[in-house]
């Protein structure tokens, strides 16, 4: 295609920084961030599985998960899984052509956020009481 040069360059489309962050934008990037975090989180899972399979280093890993940082990591890991799952279901609904209207996508963005936090808290309360 021939290049068109103008004397006064037209403004380029504004960069990310000038947009006000909306809830749907935040959920979009969070889906990607949680996806990538889960990707690397699989290392942790394999580490734990290996420790269980060989019993080498299992107690050390367990006492790490007993610290506040370890607990936070486990909580964050489960939240990332649940958040990405809900966001994924949101994508799957969109793939059927539904839920794309402005009000609907705003609602499902909030539902994903509120849902992931409350589900994660509920799941841990349930898990810890089931265990007794």
């Amino acid at each position, binding site marked *: 295609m021939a290049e068109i040069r103008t004397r006064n360059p037209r403004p380029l489309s504004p960069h990310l920084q000038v947009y006000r962050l909306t809830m749907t934008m935040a959920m979009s990037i969070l889906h990607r961030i949680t*996806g990538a975090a889960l990707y690397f989180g699989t290392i942790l899972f394999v580490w734990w*599985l290996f420790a*269980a399979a060989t*019993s080498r280093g299992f107690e050390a890993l*367990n006492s790490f998960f007993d610290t506040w940082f370890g607990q936070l990591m486990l909580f964050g890991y489960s939240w990332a899984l*649940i958040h990405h799952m809900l966001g*994924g279901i949101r994508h799957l609904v969109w793939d059927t052509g539904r839920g794309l209207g402005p009000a609907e996508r705003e609602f499902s963005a909030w539902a994903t956020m509120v849902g992931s936090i409350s589900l994660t808290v509920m*799941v841990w309360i349930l898990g*810890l009481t089931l265990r007794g």
Partner: protein
Amino acid sequence: MTMRSPLSRVRGLGSAHSGTEHFLTQRMTAIANVPLVLFFVYLLVTLAGRSHAAVSATLSNSTTAIFLLAAILSVVIHMRIGMQIIIEDYVHHDGLKMSLMMANTFFSIAIGLCAGFAILKLNFGL
């Protein structure tokens, strides 16, 4: 204007001779991931901090093992495609892109093999 026949467009066969498989596989594994990940979260909250004896007893149950193997298979395929999409979006240098794509594939296969090996070992006690 396009020189491609309607049939080849429907099939998604451009010059790369492929196109929609990744999209469809990503959706299929996403659907499979839902029950498998819920099961995994259940394991996570009930096993976190438990003794080695309790953890290995749970993981050496055949139903648990089969579900975990299924989860690993589905997740590894899903996360490889997902990471490839992320790489394609942000990395525009061809050489670097190719290297990262390869690293992504190696990583995904390694995770799948290591996890599968550990689960089989827990169950067959090699």
